[in-house]
């Protein structure tokens, strides 16, 4: 879902811009420091329930309170991705990705990074406030992706739906976590520190596998049970509590080089 469409520059714009880009390239290429060696980093998300790979629809799970649940939908935005060390920050441009557990191709993305060793993978879980109020977007942020509220403008940052016998809401469980304004902001700053350096080598791809543990939605900061809160589909304090919990759902599982 991270869409190639975001590169669809209008052709007449390209016709205007291309000579400028070429000139810029030529002028930069005379400056040695600009010719940085680059390699690629691929970031892969693997959804689990407390370490067990997530299976949609059929698999039955229990949360830490022993409440049973199934998962029918699990989607979240990853944006503003960068690799960082003490002196350098390598940010992805136009960095917006929507992962969807139902679409395996949406679960990873890659971008080019200057060769070097990095220690932190940094991103937002959600969409930064600016893009929540900048009008019609495309690519991962296209409202067609069913992650944009039309009754109260703004993105649903993460969506988790399923069923649970503990739910009094027709045995449904629906968490649509959104809100970008200061008082209701659920966007989470995620910084994953790698135990060993993330090494980027020219012409090679470094793969970072991240585990996303859905069971954290009910725990870590605040205990939230399905029985009490089976539904959250508006911004506000419950959404913020759930978001604070799920800010802890990511961990680096492995780093490897190809």
């Amino acid at each position, binding site marked *: 879902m991270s869409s190639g469409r975001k590169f669809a520059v209008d052709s007449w714009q390209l*016709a205007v811009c291309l000579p400028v880009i070429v000139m810029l390239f030529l002028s930069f290429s005379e400056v040695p420091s600009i010719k940085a060696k680059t390699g690629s980093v691929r970031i892969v998300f693997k959804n689990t329930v407390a370490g067990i790979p997530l299976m949609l629809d059929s698999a039955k799970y229990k949360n830490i309170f022993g409440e049973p649940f199934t998962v029918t939908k699990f989607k979240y935005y990853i944006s503003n991705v960068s690799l960082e060390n003490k002196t350098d920050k390598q940010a992805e441009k136009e960095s917006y990705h929507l992962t969807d557990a139902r679409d395996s191709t949406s679960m990873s993305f890659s971008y080019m990074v200057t060769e070097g060793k990095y220690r932190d993978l940094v991103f937002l879980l959600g969409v930064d406030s600016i893009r929540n109020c900048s009008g019609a977007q495309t690519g991962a942020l296209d*409202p067609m992706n069913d992650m944009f509220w039309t009754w109260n403008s703004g993105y649903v940052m993460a969506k988790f739906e399923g069923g649970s016998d503990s739910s009094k809401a027709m045995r449904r469980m629906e968490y649509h976590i959104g809100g970008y304004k200061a008082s209701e902001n659920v966007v989470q700053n995620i910084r994953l520190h790698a135990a060993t350096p993330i090494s980027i080598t020219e012409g090679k791809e470094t793969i970072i596998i991240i585990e996303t543990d859905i069971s954290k939605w009910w725990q870590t900061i605040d205990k939230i049970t399905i029985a009490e809160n089976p539904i959250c589909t508006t911004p506000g304090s419950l959404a913020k509590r759930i978001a604070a919990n799920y800010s802890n759902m990511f961990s680096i599982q492995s780093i490897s080089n190809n």
Partner: protein
Amino acid sequence: MIISAANGPGPKPTYLEFKIPDGWPKPPTDIFAKNRLSEEGFQLGRKLFYDGRLSKDGNFPCASCHQQFAAFANFEHDFSHGFNNTFTTRNAPPLLNLAWMTEFQWDGAVNHIEVQPLSPMTASNEMAESIDSILIKLRRDTAYVRMFKAAFGTTEINSQRMLKALAQFTGSIVSADSKYDKIKRGERVFTTSELNGYNTFKEKCASCHKEPLFTDNSFRNNGLPLNTFTSDYGRMKITRDKNDSLKFKVPTLRNVAVTYPYMHDGRFVTLGQVIDHYRTGVQTNQPNLDSALRNKLPMTLTEKNNLIYFLFTLTDSSVVHNPRFAERQ
């Protein structure tokens, strides 16, 4: 980038300048900064606005609830008709001077002109269509393929382009040429009744219905009793703040003579009824009642009648009868 000949670059669109009427404030944000206004974009937006295919059964274009002769409000309807014999739950507002508006709908639910149409398009009691289906229908129509290319350079039809084109059309509807405007420019003069009404307006109404837009685009509780049929608390739904209970956006008074019925639920049919609400009907026991209405707005019947005469001077044929904003024949 590889571009096939058929999909090749078209000529540049004919860019247009968005003119701010003399003496008007600058819009709080430039809605055309990232959506450069062009003749081709405007014409595409105009076609979309009048196209029933944007709705599920073809019967509900944007224009079904936003009629030009009603200043792009819904003539004589308190609530509008939607898909499958449904009703909306609020009165359709006029689409005027939207370039000066940053929060849309009666409760400010929508934060940008470009994303506003998503709401009626997908609501089950309005156009009831999915964005995917709309785009599929548009892509089948070679006229649209041509028009998207003319407006945006390539034949790609996506939601962003559709919404930007609609914003070019609706954002271009500026009402600034009513009799009132001509008087302000020294081209015409008020009658005695109108002038007296204008003085009453300035004294009693202008703090919220601020000139020249005739709204300050704020949300206020104007002392209407709750509509128990819709149980609509307005702005509170968006902010979840009880201080915003029963607050609704101050509507513009431009073209107010043709936008009846009035209020967020269309409960008043005539301007006389509206003014009577402010004279005598305001529920002053509501804790967050707008401070300007604490003592209601006492007015003699003569003042009331003159005020109505003044409000008639805000009807603007450059909007209501302008062929540029009409459906293309």
